[in-house]
């Protein structure tokens, strides 16, 4: 049926554009802040776990920089 064919074509045109828009967004550079955040979360957890295992003090808050 012509109607079905047109509908498919219409959906195709829309999805093609959709993918292009999405791809453009995917191609954007990821800001450093997110990588920094992930590193911080990892660090925090490490020092948090150490603190709970050993002394509940903040001796480890001093970090090498």
């Amino acid at each position, binding site marked *: 049926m012509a109607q079905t064919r047109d509908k498919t074509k219409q959906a195709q*045109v*829309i*999805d093609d*554009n*959709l993918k292009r*828009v999405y791809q453009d967004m995917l191609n*954007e550079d990821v800001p450093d802040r997110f990588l920094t955040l992930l590193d911080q979360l*990892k660090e925090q957890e490490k020092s948090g776990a150490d603190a709970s295992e050993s002394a509940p003090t903040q001796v480890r808050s001093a970090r090498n920089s």
Partner: protein
Amino acid sequence: MSDDPRDEIVKHLPAMRAFALSLTRNSALADDMVQDSLVKAWTKIHTFEPGTNMRAWLFTILRNTYYSNRRKAGREVSDADGLMTEGLSEKPAHDGRLQLADFRRAFAQLNDEQREALILVGASGFSYEEAADMCGVAVGTIKSRTNRARARLAQLMNLTEDEALEMTDSATMAVVSGNRSSAAG
């Protein structure tokens, strides 16, 4: 420590940003949303079932963050910084493709639920079932949202008009060729 599923999160950052951008249509809001979601994902990693789709899990956190912020704000975060509607200086499409700028404009006019369903199913490659799971709705709901989203986009971009034109053309052709064959016969 090397099999910590959280090590995989970094791989999904571009997709997380893309999804956040599609929802918020504002890069500053999107980045804040990604940031909040990363903290949640990190601290709630025990809710992730190893072996399942991590991207789906992260997207679920993102959308929950978005909708809970929207509820708090008491309104849809509207008009964005024009990110989605930004005009790209593109040459008019000669191959029947729509101009991307037109599409972005139309896409930004969809409601959140429609935009979300379309991005998940139409662009990110999730199945209807996965998308339904992520959105916490029935599969039929996702299907109808994507259908309505496509119909609305078609309407906004005058796609239906083009089709009508096309159909008129083929009808004319049929009449012409019909006349010709009847004249010949």
